[in-house]
């Protein structure tokens, strides 16, 4: 009996420590935040936050027309505040329910905000566990409000629409796929440099493509789609998408579908300044050609060379822009030195900003055509 007494006392005592049910809120008393757009405001040091709040009863709808019963499925509410938390508090004066951020899927940052100091915006996102590290981040051309006002027709839930657009890496490598966790990690390890997806919007849909280049927590410029794909090839992040090249024989194009990619960076020379070589291995299928039906093995081999050349060109273009124009090391060269050549890194740690634009990178792409297509 004695041991049970002890057990129960422990259990009861632990309950005393938890009196108040600190987190207890019925699920229907919460307002889920689906996505947030952040814009600058007229007041100094304050931002405008656009919260998109899914309305549960309209989304689930139930009988008779699946939520088409009148109301909007998503409400967008704007507020002004120093930080996202402050914004939410201000909103509490107008709404009768708790804002709940754990389901926030997408953070869209306006161009003006990004050109200012991103640190201030990101701070609460790092600090509070309430923010989902898997929410995706995008930087919007112009105001984030435009994105938040989009009325997608494929999904009822705006956040879901935005998130799945930003997650479609299997279909295209032309944008920088990034979630909050990655973003924070990049900002830490690369001193505030990162590639973030670029987003644009019209009334009914958003479009992604290209990337925003963040240097020292500030937006410094954009990469176009091909440059972004090149950078993704460099980083080994491509999982899908296609490459269209000139048909070597016909007068049309050949579509090459990427199945997978691996990249390997290695240090080629240490003196006078570090020199890198990059091997990129790409595997894929041929989806369409414009000449003849039958594709011989020789043709396939020839195609491999042409695709490699095209990919090399994309990578060089992206690397050149990042290296020479923006001088932003999101290619993780410094990371490589830090990890694999610590002594060399110590030498360049201070002066890396000056050395980096002059670093030479030898790019080799190895393409394999896995399948020339079933023809029967």
């Amino acid at each position: 009996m004695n041991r049970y007494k002890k057990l129960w006392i422990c259990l009861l005592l632990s309950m005393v420590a938890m009196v108040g049910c600190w987190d207890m809120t019925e699920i229907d008393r919460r307002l889920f935040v689906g996505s947030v757009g952040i814009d600058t405001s007229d007041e100094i040091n304050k931002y405008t936050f656009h919260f998109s709040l899914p309305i549960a009863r309209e989304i689930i709808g139930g009988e008779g027309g699946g939520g088409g019963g009148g109301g909007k499925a998503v409400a967008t509410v704007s507020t002004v505040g120093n930080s996202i938390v402050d914004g939410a508090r201000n909103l509490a004066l107008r709404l009768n329910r708790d804002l709940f951020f754990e389901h926030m899927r997408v953070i869209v940052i306006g161009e003006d905000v990004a050109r200012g100091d991103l640190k201030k915006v990101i701070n609460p996102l790092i600090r509070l566990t309430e923010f989902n590290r898997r929410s995706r981040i995008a930087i919007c051309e112009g105001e984030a409000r435009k994105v938040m006002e989009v009325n997608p027709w494929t999904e009822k839930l705006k956040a879901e629409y935005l998130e799945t657009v930003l997650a479609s890496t299997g279909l295209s490598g032309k944008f920088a796929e990034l979630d909050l966790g990655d973003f924070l990690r990049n900002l830490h390890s690369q001193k505030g440099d990162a590639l973030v997806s670029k987003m644009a919007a019209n009334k009914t849909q958003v479009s992604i493509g290209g990337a925003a280049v963040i240097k020292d927590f500030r937006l410094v410029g954009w990469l176009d789609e091909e440059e972004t794909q090149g950078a993704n090839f460099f980083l080994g992040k491509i999982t899908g998408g296609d490459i269209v090249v000139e048909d070597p024989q016909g007068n049309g194009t050949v579509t090459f579908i990427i199945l997978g990619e691996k990249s390997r960076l290695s240090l080629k020379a240490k003196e006078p300044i570090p020199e890198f070589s990059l091997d990129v291995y790409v595997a894929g299928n041929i989806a369409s050609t414009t000449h003849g039906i039958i594709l011989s093995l020789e043709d396939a081999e020839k195609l491999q060379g042409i695709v490699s050349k095209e990919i090399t060109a994309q990578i060089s273009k992206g690397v050149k822009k990042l290296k020479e124009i923006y001088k932003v090391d999101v290619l993780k060269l410094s990371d490589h030195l830090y990890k694999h050549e610590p002594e060399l890194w110590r030498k360049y740690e201070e002066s890396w900003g000056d050395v980096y634009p002059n670093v030479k990178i030898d790019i080799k792409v190895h393409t394999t055509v896995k399948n020339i297509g079933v023809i029967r």
Partner: protein
Amino acid sequence: MTNIFSKLNYTKKKELYFERDMSPDKSKKLKKSIKENIDGVHSYLYDCDDIITRDFYMGQTPKHQMSLMFIDGMVDKDTLQNDILKPLMIFTRQFPLEYSVGENFFNMVKEGLLTAGDLKESDNFGEVILGILSGDTVLFLDKVEKALVISTRGWEKRGVQEPSTEAVIRGPRDGFTETYRTNVALVRRRLKDPNLKVKTIKLGRHTRTDVGIMFIQGVAKPSIVDEVLKRLNTVDTSSVLESGYIEQMIEGDWLSPFPQLRRTERPDVVAASLVEGNVAIICDNTPFALLAPATLLSLFQSPEDYYERWYIVSMIRILRFMAAFFAFTFPALYIAMTTFHPGMLPTDLALSIAAAREGVPFSAVLEALIMVSSLEVLREAGVRLPGPIGQTIGIVGGLVVGEAAVRAGIVSPIMVIVVAVNAISSFAIPNYSVAIGFRLLTFILIALASVAGLYGIMLGLLGLTIHLVTLKSFGAHFLSPFVSFRWSESKDTIIRGPIPSMEIRPGYTRPEDLDRINDRRHDTIDKAGDESADE
């Protein structure tokens, strides 16, 4: 009214005529005169109108006086007629009796005349009265200080039927009945082993119920057998009407929600457990036998687990354990997830729960308590009502009330799903007592979840684990073989390995003879091949 019963003596009680261990008091010896003996019996069994005394004499003269005493309805009339009365009264009528009344005549009757199968001599009132009360027939002869107790037990009883609580698809269909001897015989028929021992004691001051323990000598661990006997001997109770009385009196921890003896209605389960080194307790007047020691895993087993092929059984067992987990955690998890940690749910699910809950007047906790309790009430009502009505209640309760409650907006449809999954999961546990124990835990976990969310649930599970790890059943760990784990025993746990691979008996009974299977199949196959090659 008063006139008839005023003659009865309610207050005066003849002194207890049996020893503490329910064996008859042998000190009151029988008398020489048949009249005194019959009066003696009547002095104890007065006001018992169901006792029948049949006086008769043997042969052609009333010299050889005899008397039969038995209880109407508890004796087999055929045996009484054909094996006692017929030989004594009809067969002896044709020739004159040479023996004079007395000892020799008694022996002649016992050895030469009675054709009943089982009889014994007795020289005291204790045995005689117990015999009469047990359904035996007692034969008194004049001028002898002894009586014959002839086993004529036979009463209206239920035949061997299919057990209703442990249904199987494949497996024997016979179940225990309410008769002790039948039950023992059902087990004995499966184990033709001279080492199968049956020890019978009587328990209950008023009921004097036959309680037997069965074990296989050399397989069961002696200390477990001793422990069972010791605990049974400490039982001092007025009545044992069902094996549940014994179970609750001899189990080690009666605060636990888990039964520490396994109960079964199936002789094949008893036989299988005996071979594994368990001890069976079989009780008269109930079709439920008890098996000791019990482990959590054994309570999760169905006999069919060993009759079906092992892939299927392994899958079913895994499902059963998952079901058991949901059987006591599901409503609690729902409460924790929705009221404390909605971030853990997928967004779409969180939204649909939120939408479903909109307009529901009660908090999730109260809602869960209402639904789980009403389900318990429905279950109880369905069990107690006669069969066809019970089903009706199930339909009315499940469909009509559930649907109506949702439509009226009193509970959310998700909660109906949660409670239904919870209930169905608990029915997937083969042992009803365990399932009910788990359902009890549901309430505790709901309380903990409503106070501290997942943290509370974890505390509850932690407490449960502590309890289970410390729980013992007759010296065996309740959680074995997970406590003091042995790899060789893992084949019969959450999965069930192929039967040829289960070479040793489970260690929780620590049987003396560990070998279960000597797999000589391969040897014999090889040898057969060799021999045929030689020829």
